[in-house]
């Protein structure tokens, strides 16, 4: 009889707590968004599934010697998984459009205002007593505005590991929501005439320029913002492997097997941070609210910077591509293109938007470097 009781006590039905059940539903909801709505499925499927596993009662999966805890210890707490993913993204990135029109880098810079405004917002809400965020936590929340998954995970791993789960979920969810968040802001800040601006075809770019660019970028980072060197270094390394064309097999592995393996492990590791006790706290709501503000501000400042540049230059920029400066590659560039087509069906902005789009990646890693150096 006592054994039957022990058996009953071993079941999940007996042991499960309400918060664990809620988290399992949240995990299922993330999977639903990923599968049915195509919300960044590459990350949200492992994160959602990992989140479910982490909240199964009576068994150590995300804590102690559990498999997800081991994954997190191996590659999330150490930064290895996000850096490998970033290396792979580097190996998939084409800097050609940016090299053809380097001026658009300023759009990628402006969009980072979203990061710092959100940081201030988080601290302001702490001051008025709504939340209680430290400087490091506020910085980690701000980086959601960078619209760059691995960067957000890497930075929050360094600055605020206790918020990592919520920040990662917010970052990927909002990246998926870019087609909903951005267009109203873009339309509100531009005139019909501006949205019709046609840009000149970009010049062809030498392969040599493409090979030299990641090195130029790395050296400049080393000289100005060394704190961004781990992130941008791995990114540039991936890009150099791709562009130099003499290590095709390494570049191919970095773009396929290695980034896929790192993505699976990264996603599951992030999922291990969705333990009920850590996720179901008031701060998570604050993070979700501030994250969407960060995206909105970044979008607006990108568009406004384009308009500012147009005041000083003959070659007009279509301000819609400024919105692509938030990163969210390549979603934001596609959104710019789509909104442009609404005003002029023959005006394809996608190539022009790719420049600020990848500049946004550079911009947010620089911001990340500053935050890591001064907020930790």
């Amino acid at each position, binding site marked *: 009889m006592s054994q039957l009781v022990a058996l009953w006590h071993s079941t999940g039905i007996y042991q499960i707590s309400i918060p664990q059940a809620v988290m399992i539903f949240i995990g299922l909801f993330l999977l639903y968004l990923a599968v049915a709505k195509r919300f960044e499925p590459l990350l949200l499927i492992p994160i959602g599934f990992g989140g479910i596993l982490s909240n199964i009662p009576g068994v150590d999966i995300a804590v102690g010697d559990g498999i997800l805890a081991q994954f997190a210890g191996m590659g999330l707490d150490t930064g290895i998984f996000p850096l490998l993913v970033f290396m792979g993204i580097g190996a998939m990135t084409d800097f050609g459009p940016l*090299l053809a029109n*380097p*001026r658009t*880098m*300023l759009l*990628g*810079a402006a969009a*980072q*205002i979203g*990061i*710092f*405004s959100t*940081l*201030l917002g988080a*601290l*302001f809400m*702490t*001051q008025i007593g709504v939340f209680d965020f*430290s*400087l490091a936590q*506020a*910085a980690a929340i701000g980086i959601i505005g960078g619209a760059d998954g691995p960067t957000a995970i890497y930075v929050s791993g360094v600055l605020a590991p206790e918020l990592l789960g919520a920040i990662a979920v917010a970052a990927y969810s909002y990246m998926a929501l870019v087609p909903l968040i951005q267009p109203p802001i873009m339309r509100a800040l531009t005139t019909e005439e501006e949205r019709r601006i046609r840009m000149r075809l970009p010049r*062809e*770019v*030498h*392969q*040599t*320029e493409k090979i*030299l*660019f990641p090195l*130029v*970028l790395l050296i*400049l*980072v080393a000289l*100005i*913002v060394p704190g961004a060197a781990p992130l941008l270094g791995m990114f540039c390394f991936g890009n150099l492997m791709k562009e130099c*064309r003499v290590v095709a097999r390494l570049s191919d592995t970095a773009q396929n097997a290695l980034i896929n393996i790192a993505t699976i492990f990264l996603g599951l590791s992030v999922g291990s941070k969705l333990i009920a006790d850590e996720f179901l706290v008031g701060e998570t709501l604050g993070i979700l609210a501030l994250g969407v503000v960060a995206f909105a501000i970044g979008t607006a400042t990108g568009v406004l910077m384009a308009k500012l540049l147009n005041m000083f230059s003959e070659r007009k920029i279509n301000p819609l591509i400024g919105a692509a400066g938030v990163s969210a590659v390549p979603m934001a560039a596609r959104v710019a293109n789509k909104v442009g087509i609404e005003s002029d069906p023959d005006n394809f902005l996608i190539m022009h938007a790719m420049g600020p789009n990848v*500049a946004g990646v*550079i*911009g947010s890693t*620089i*911001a990340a470097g*500053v*935050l890591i150096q*001064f*907020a930790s």
Partner: protein
Amino acid sequence: MENLVSQGFELAIFGMGTVFVFLTLLILVTHGMSLLVQKYEPELPKTAAQTATQKVDRHLLAVITAAISEHRSKRD
């Protein structure tokens, strides 16, 4: 607390400043690099291997596409 917001303000100013300074410098350096490359490598050279591969790939694609559509038209 007051202190925290002012710290954050400083961080935001310096942060955005660094981002803009960095990307402005990057524009200049990149521009210079591109000019140098265009000066010393005036043509657009593609590695032989790459061009060959692309040509074969395009041909192969064309051939296979043609074969498939021919096959389809026969079948239908």
